[in-house]
């Protein structure tokens, strides 16, 4: 496992997502209300680019007519078949026993920490004054 420095924090404002390829793996990084999340950009169902789908909420119901809509913006919906996955864990809401999206931890690290390493800075020149988005995979 390596820690990859993928962006300056300012480059990924809330509501944005960044697509990149690390070690031949397609990855997407999301900033959702200031929190960062990473997912493999491949749906475990039929292989679509999962992270190009919309971020929606979680619709749950205990009884017909009673619907709770929560977790707004934390559920990714596949652009093909609409399968839904939890952005925090990769859990599938369609078939949790058989399928899980691959989730990667993403953190913000200070430039001084990043300079000490061990990190892989893809194409970024790292400066101690800045904060960086770092993904582990």
């Amino acid at each position: 496992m390596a820690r990859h420095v993928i962006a300056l924090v300012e480059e990924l404002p809330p509501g944005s997502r960044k697509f990149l390829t690390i070690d031949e793996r397609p990855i997407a990084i999301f900033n959702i209300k200031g929190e960062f999340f990473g997912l493999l950009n491949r749906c475990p169902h039929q292989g679509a680019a999962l992270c190009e789908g919309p971020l929606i909420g979680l619709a749950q119901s205990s009884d017909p007519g009673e619907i709770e809509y929560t977790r707004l913006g934390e559920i990714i919906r596949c652009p093909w078949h609409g399968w839904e996955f939890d952005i925090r864990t990769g859990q599938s809401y369609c078939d949790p026993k058989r399928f899980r999206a691959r989730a990667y931890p993403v953190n913000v690290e200070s430039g001084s920490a990043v300079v000490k390493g061990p990190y892989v800075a893809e194409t970024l020149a790292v400066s101690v004054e800045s904060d960086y988005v770092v993904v582990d995979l």
Partner: protein
Amino acid sequence: MNVQFRPEPSASVSVKTAIADCDIHPARATATELYPFLEKRWHDHLEAYGKQAYHGMMEGPPYPKAQPNASRRDAWPPEGGPQGSSLSFMQKQLLDPYNVALGVLNPLASGQGLRNQDLAGAICSAINDWQIEKWTSKDSRLKGSIVVANEDGLSAAAEIRRRAGDPNFVQVLLLSRTVEPLGQRRYWPIYEAAQEIGLPVGIHAFGFGGNPLTPSGWPSFYIEEMVGHSQCQQTVLASLVLEGVFERYPKLKMVMIEAGFGWAPSLGWRLDKSFERLHSEVPYLKRKPSEYIRDHIWWTTQPMEDPERRDHLFQVIEWIGWDKLLFATDYPHWDFDEPSRVLPAGVSDANREAFYLGNAKKLYGMS
């Protein structure tokens, strides 16, 4: 609004086994894209009066269908226009990466089911010219479907005969939701013409006939419509068999498109059982209903049946015949089937080849 940074996907270098895709939906990039193929009279008519469908005052989709235009979100062409409206993007996203050797175009919302039969016929004929001009003449892997004003059997038959022998077309296309069940006599001129020019008749789920999708009324949910296509197609198939269409047109081949196939054995059993007891009502049938189904019907696979146990799938296919299934993706629609993910393990090489390519080449005369 999301800010997106996306690198260009790298081209796949692997060479995949060739497939046929028997359900591709080409779209118009603009509302006036058909005008070059329509007389000026109809441009003015469309702009003054629009199109009146049997469905009443609405076009096909009465509600958003899960994804924009019921299509994959990654299928918007980069040059603009709706999903499925760009040949170059279709080549890049579908035909090249999946090594599609034969792609059958099934234009929907094409003028079938309009109350103004002259307008319906003009639009359908324009769609057929447009398929040649925009698609099949530009990419020899693509073949068209002759669309017809299916509520006007005589004009439909004339359009079919006009296309006789044209290698741009490999089938006649009907939609399942018509004014009356498709076995009835008003539709027989279509079958007569198709048999005469030697093309199969595909019946695609969907349509504008004005009847509810289900026999018990209008459903509440899109998910009911998705499932209801199978129920609707069962009434279509029962009608075709019981009206004697296959006795009347013994060389006719038909394709059930996008309506499932898991129900075929059960419908066959039920028809046969009733036929044993009620034969005298339909004495022109010389064989058991299931025999007509097995001999005359082909089935596209998408959206593929996906039972928990694969042996159940294989049992259904055994009843239908491995020689009757035609792989389809339904591109660019959202319920696209990715070819490598569709068929479970445990299928012989010969059956696999038939499923993905051989059956389609044979049926559509491409071998």
